[in-house]
C-alpha cells in the first residue's frame, strides 16, 4: 500500500512535469544520474537535483508527500521534495510516536500521536531537515527540501533519473545522508540538450 501511494505520488509528479513541459516539448530531455561511493558501490537513497543556471526556476506547484512510521522506522528514510510541499506523517504502528525536528529549515514537533495527524507539515524553506522520534532515538529520517522541481532519488541500483529537463545549463547537486556533516555538496555543471547520463562518486567513507 505504501508503494502504491508512493507510485501514485510519483506518477502525478511525472504527469505534472509532462504538463509543464508541454509548451517546449521539443527541448525537454532526461538526465540519468549514477550515484556511487568511491569504490563504485551504488548508493541507494542518494538524491540529486538540478538547479537551472541563468534561467528562472519554474513556478512551484504545491505538492504533498507522505512519510510513514512503520515498525519504528521512518519510511522512506530519505525524501527529496520541493519547497512548499506538505508532508503527512501517518503512524502505522500501534504505538505512539513523537516526530520532531530541530533542523533550522523546519523545526516542528508532532506531539505524541497515533494514526494520521490532523495537519500535514509544510516544508517551506529549502535545506536539510532531520526528523526524529522523541521516544525512539533510532528512528531517523532525512528530508531534503530543494527550490527546484527537478530532482530524483536513487533506487537500489544507485540510479536516479531526472526527467523532462528543459534544455539549458544546470547545476546538478547530489547528496547522501551518509555524507559527513559539513562536507561540501558535490555539484556538477551540465548543459542539457538531449538525454544524457551523469556519474557521481560520493565520499561517504568518512562517516
Amino acid at each position, binding site marked *: 500500500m505504501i508503494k502504491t501511494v508512493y507510485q501514485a505520488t510519483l506518477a502525478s509528479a511525472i504527469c505534472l512535469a509532462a504538463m509543464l513541459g508541454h509548451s517546449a516539448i521539443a527541448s525537454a530531455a532526461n538526465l540519468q544520474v549514477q550515484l556511487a561511493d568511491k569504490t563504485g558501490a551504488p548508493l541507494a537513497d542518494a538524491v540529486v537535483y538540478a538547479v537551472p543556471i541563468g534561467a528562472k526556476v519554474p513556478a512551484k506547484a504545491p505538492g504533498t508527500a507522505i512519510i510513514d512510521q512503520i515498525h519504528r522506522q521512518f519510511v522512506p528514510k530519505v525524501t527529496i521534495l520541493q519547497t512548499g510541499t506538505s508532508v503527512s506523517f501517518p503512524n502505522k504502528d500501534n504505538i505512539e510516536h513523537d516526530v*520532531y525536528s*530541530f533542523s533550522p529549515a523546519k523545526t516542528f514537533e508532532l506531539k505524541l500521536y497515533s494514526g494520521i495527524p490532523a495537519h500535514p507539515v509544510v516544508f517551506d524553506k529549502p535545506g536539510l531537515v532531520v526528523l526524529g522520534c522523541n521516544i525512539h532515538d533510532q528512528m*531517523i529520517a532525512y528530508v531534503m527540501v530543494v527550490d527546484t522541481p527537478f530532482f530524483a532519488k536513487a533506487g537500489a541500483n544507485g540510479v536516479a533519473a531526472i526527467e523532462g529537463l528543459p534544455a539549458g545549463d544546470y547545476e546538478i547537486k547530489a547528496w547522501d545522508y551518509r555524507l559527513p556533516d559539513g562536507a561540501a555538496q558535490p555539484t556538477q555543471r551540465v548543459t542539457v540538450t538531449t538525454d544524457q547520463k551523469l556519474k557521481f562518486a560520493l565520499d561517504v567513507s568518512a562517516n
Partner: protein
Amino acid sequence: MRIRIHHLHTRIALVFVALLLVIQVAGFSVISTAIYANARHTVNDQLSVSEKVFRQLLSSDDEKLRQAATVTAADFGFRAAVATRDQATVESALKNQGDRIHANLVMLVGPDNRLLADTLAPNEAGRDFSFPDLIATARRSGSASKVGLVNGRLYQLVAVPVLAPLPIAWVVMGFAVDNALAVRLGDITSLGVSFLTKTADGKWSLLATALPEDKGQELAQALDQVGASSGSLEIDRSYARFGMTRYGARIISLDQNGQRVVAVLQRSLDEAMASFRRLQSTLLIISVVGFVVSLVGSVLTARSITRPLAALTRFARSLGRGDFEVPIEAAGDDEIGELTQAFNTMRGNLVERERRILDLAYYDPLTRLPNRVMFTDQLTRMIEQASRADTTFSLMMMDLDRFKLVNDTLGHHMGDLLLCEVGQRLSRTLSHESEMVARLGGDEFALLLPDTDLDAAKRFARRIGTVLDEPLSIDGHTIDVHGSIGIVSFPLHGREFHTLMRRADVAMYAAKRVNAGSAVYSAADDVHSPERLTLMTELRRAVESDQLSLYYQPKVDLSSYQVKYVEALVRWIHPERGFIAPDQFIPFAEQTGYIKVLTRWVIDRAMRQLAQWHADGIDLSVSVNVSARDLLHAGLPEYFEGALRRYGVSPQWIWIEITESAVMDDAAAALQTLDQLHQMGLRLSIDDFGTGYSSLAYLKRLPVDEIKIDKSFVMGMMTDNDDEVIVRSTIDLGHNMGLKVVAEGVESEAVMLLLGTLNCDLVQGYHVSRPLPEDKFREWLRQWHASVPANVQADTLDGGRHIA
C-alpha cells in the same frame, strides 16, 4: 674412667640435643617461611581479588554515571535547548541536569571539540575541551568515560551525545574522585585506596585517599622513592615499604593522555600476617618447650643408660681386683639388664674358675694334699709370722725309701695308691689346724709344724715313723713303707725360705743314707755348707790343675799268678792338705753331679795309660769305676767310644765296674746304657757284690762278665764261717753263671790260698799290692813277672782260656 662415662652420657645427650635443635630450628624456620610465604601469598591473592573488585567497582560506577548522563542528555527539553543554541538556557539546563544526578561538573562539547558550556567556568565557553579522546570515543561508541584531572581535581568523566536526533553536541559530566569515594572503595575492597598524580615537578601528589592524611602523604613520598629508584612508575603488582609499615600494594595506572594518575591499593602485610604471627609465636613457644623437654628427656635417658654402665664398670673393676663376693643387682630386663645378668654369670664363672684354678694351683690332684706352691706360700707366711712374733716352728721333709722299686715292680697305679695312703696317714698325724702336710712332688712330702721346737719335731717324726710302720695293704699286696725324714727348725737352722728347704732336704738325704728314719740337719752332711763349698771349688781346680792322678791296683790270676788286669783308682794329692781319701770326695762329687767330669777324666787318663802300656808291650786290661749317676747321664757310651778312638785302644781291654745300687736306682736307664757299652765290646763288673739288695734276676739281666765279692766278706772269711760260705757260694754262683769272680780285700797269704782252693779267679788287695802310681806300678809289675815262673804263666793262660 669417670670422665669417659661422663663423656658418653654427655655425648648421647649432645647428639640428641643437637638433632632436636636442628629439627626444631629447621621445622620452625620452614614453618615460619611457609607462614610468611603464605601470608604474602594471601595478601597477594587478596590484592589480586581486590584489584579486580576495584576495577569492577570503578567500571560499575562508570556505567552508572554513563547511564545517568545518557538519561539526562536524552531529555527532550534539554535537547531542545541545546539544539536551539540558547546559551543561557543551555547553561541552566546543564546545571539542572547535573544536579539531578549529583554530577560535580557538567560540560557541553560541540562536534568541533569546543566547549559550548561549562558549569565550573560559565564564562569561558569557546575553549578547547581537554579530553578530545573522550569525545572521539563517545562518537564511536555512543558514550565514553575516563578519569581525568580538571583544575587540579580528579574526576570520573563521562561523555554522552546530545541527539537531535543526530549527535549535535556531547554532554560531559564529572564526578569528583574524593576521599569519600576512596573510603567507600576501601570499605568494599578492605584495602587502603589512594589516588595520586604526578605533578609537573615530578613529585607524586595525593589526590584522594581512604588513609589517614599522614599515611597518604607517606605513601606519596614512598612512591617518589620507588619512582626514583625504578625510573618508571609502571610498577604495579609490587610490594613496597611505605614508611614504617610493610605493605602489599598494587599500583593501578589510571593514566590517560599524558596525565599520570594512579590508584594505589595497599594492604598492610603486618596486619595481614598478624594471625600468622600469633601462630608463629605459638609455634616458637612449642618449639622451645619441646626442645627443653627433649633436652631434659635426652639427659635423663643418657643418664639412665650411663648410670647402670657406671655401676657395671665399678663392678667389673672390683672383679678385676679379684673381689667376687657381691653380685651386682640386675637393673631391669632391658639390654643393660641383660648385660648385668651376663656380668653376674661371668662373676659366677670366674668364682668357679678361680676356685678350680686355685685348686689346681694349690692342691695336688692325686692326694688332695696341698702342693708345693701352697706349701711355699704357707712357709713364706710362717717365716714372716715367726720372724715378727719371734717364735719357732719346724719343717720336715720326707720321701719314701725305695718308692721307685714299688713303682717299677708293682706299677704306677700301685705307686699312686701308696702315695695316697701315705698322704692320708700323714694327715692323720696332724693334730692342729695350723699344721700342714703337703706333697711336694713324686714321693716327697713336707710337713709344717707351727710353734714346734726341735724336740717336739723329733717326737713328731717318730710318730710318723710309727704310723707308716703299720701294715699297709693295697690291692692285696702288703707293702712295707719306710720314709726318711729331714727335720729343720726355725730359726735354729735358718731364717730364710731356701735355706730351710735345702737344709731339710739335706737332713732327709742324710737320714736316708744312714737308714735312720729321721735326721736333724747337720752341717757335716751339707754339700752346700761352707766347708763343702770350698771342697767343691778345690775339686774343680784339682781336675783343671792336674792334682788328681790315677793309681793302679793289680788283680792277680790265682791259676797262673799272672797280672793281666788292673783297677784304675783316682787319687787326690792336695798341695796343702796332702792325700785326700776317695771316700771324702767321691760321694760328694756324686751328690753335686761333678762325678761326671771326674769319671770322664778317669776314663781319659786310663785309656791314655792303656795305650801307653800296650805300646810298651805291657799287656793289661783296665777297670774303671762308673757311678750310678754316670750311667744315667746321657753320652757315656759316646764318650767311651771317643776315648777308644782317640787312643787307639781295643774295647776288650776295658772293664767297667759298677755297684749294685747304681743299677737299682733306675734300672731301665742303667740297663740300656750298660747294654750299649757291652755291645761296644766293653766288659762289665759288679763291684761290692753282696752288699746290696740285688737279686739274681737282676744279675741275669745284666750283660755282666765279672763279679767282685765285697771285701767285707773276704776279710771276714778266715774268722767267720758264714762269710766263707758266702764267698764260696758266690764264687760257685759266678762260675755257674759263666762269670769271672774277683775277690777284693785280700790282705793275707792265707786268704789268698783259701780263695785259690775255692777256685776264685782273681784276687786284689794289699797282700798283692796297694794301688800304686804308674811308675811304681811298672816297677812292681816288672818284679812280679820276674818272680813268677813262666810255666805257671802258661798254665794260667790255658786256665784263662778255659774260663773265657
